[in-house]
């Protein structure tokens, strides 16, 4: 069982790394140069999956939190926490690429555009989630409290998105986002990138869950020794 688990992880690792290399290659050599934006547009290929994967990761947090509260199996709370952490890292990548993308496109580093703003709020929500995780000492209580916050946080995301979008659309929009016209090769590259990034997420998740398991085991053993 242990061996099988390891094999799956290794396969995930290899395919996701290969996938990311292939998608990088495709982004630079397969897709044509964007007419309006030029080479800056290349960042879109990583920007787009980095926007989608956090939603997926935080959705996993929600689902695992609910399952944890129902079953009280600590396995689920470990997955939830690991997923939040990885989601946060990828969300950070999104915000960074977002600012890099904004500068040449709009001339400013940050545009309060609904999607990017929602991602920022999501970043803040799950940064709070991690803070909560580290400020509760006892494992069982920690799992319970973070599970509840994991549910609250995810539910607030769509409402935030809605309200931010109306906030922009009700009033004249300063920056009208120009539609980036994607041709087929561009779409294919984006999707390949999305696929490999999702695999990469799964790969990290597996390892992180194992690490948390080991960490908790060490804490328990310390307790036992102190007794």
């Amino acid at each position, binding site marked *: 069982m242990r061996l099988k688990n390891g094999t799956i992880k290794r396969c995930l690792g290899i395919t996701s790394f290969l996938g990311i290399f292939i998608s990088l290659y495709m982004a630079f050599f397969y897709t044509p140069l964007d007419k309006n934006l030029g080479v800056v547009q290349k960042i879109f290929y990583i920007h787009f999956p980095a926007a989608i994967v956090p939603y997926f990761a935080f959705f996993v947090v929600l689902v695992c939190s609910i399952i944890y509260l129902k079953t009280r199996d600590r396995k689920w709370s470990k997955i939830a926490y690991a997923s939040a952490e990885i989601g946060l890292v990828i969300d950070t990548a999104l915000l960074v690429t977002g600012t890099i993308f904004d500068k040449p496109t709009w001339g400013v580093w940050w545009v309060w555009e609904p999607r990017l703003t929602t991602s920022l709020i999501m970043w803040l929500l799950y940064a709070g989630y991690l803070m909560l995780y580290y400020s509760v000492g006892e494992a069982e209580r920690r799992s319970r409290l973070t599970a509840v*916050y994991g549910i609250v946080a995810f539910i607030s995301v769509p409402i935030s998105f809605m309200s931010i979008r109306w906030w922009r659309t009700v009033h004249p929009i300063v920056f009208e986002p120009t539609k980036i016209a994607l041709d087929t090769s561009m779409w294919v590259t984006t999707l390949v990138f999305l696929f490999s990034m999702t695999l990469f997420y799964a790969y990290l998740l597996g390892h992180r869950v194992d690490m948390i398991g080991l960490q908790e085991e060490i804490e328990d053993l310390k307790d036992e020794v102190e007794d």
Partner: protein
Amino acid sequence: MNYLRHVLILVQKDIVAELRTKEMLNSMLLFVLLTMVMFNFAFGSGPETETLSSGLLWISFLFAAILGLNRVFVHEKDEGCLDGLMLCSMDCSVIYFGKAISSFLFLSVAELIALPVFTVFFVRESFLSHLWILIIVLMLGNVGISAVGTLLSAISINTKARDLMLPVLFLPVIVPILVAAVKSTGLVLSFSSVGTQQFWTEIVIWLRTLVIYDIIFVLVGFLTFEYVVEE
């Protein structure tokens, strides 16, 4: 029926205790006033500040709410009263609703006292004819704030950081309330410069957002509160 009675007994207890010390009300009220004065020093007083005033109003309310919400479970945790409550209520959600309703009441009282002061300081044009809309906005906002705030306050009282935790958890969740409340307050304050039709279409959007948020988070609080307080 018994359920409702228990909630009301709990609220009544909180009101009696609060009226005796007035800790929460006084500090919230003073905080709101101080924020307004500080705001004036930071941004000056001119026509441009007027456009910011609806934002100022809600920022000061929100931070005052954090001040109050931090206290919601302090008295319960102090002498283990939460245990006592768990033993005598038939259901954990009684505690949730009791606490949420009393924080709603305290917040509303502080806001209603602060509102005239705000008007005197920052509003030039009379909005008396639309005051009732502003009151609705305030109440809807407060429902959301206390529904989420009570749940998160119960979470943060269980952490090592205690009151430091609440703002970090609370503010990102409350963004929709802030957006909707600020926008609708801004509409009410400047209703004369906005056309009647535009006023109504826009205000409906924001009130709808507030109502949706309130319903969802009262439900979430009701369903998850027991997991926070149990041991």
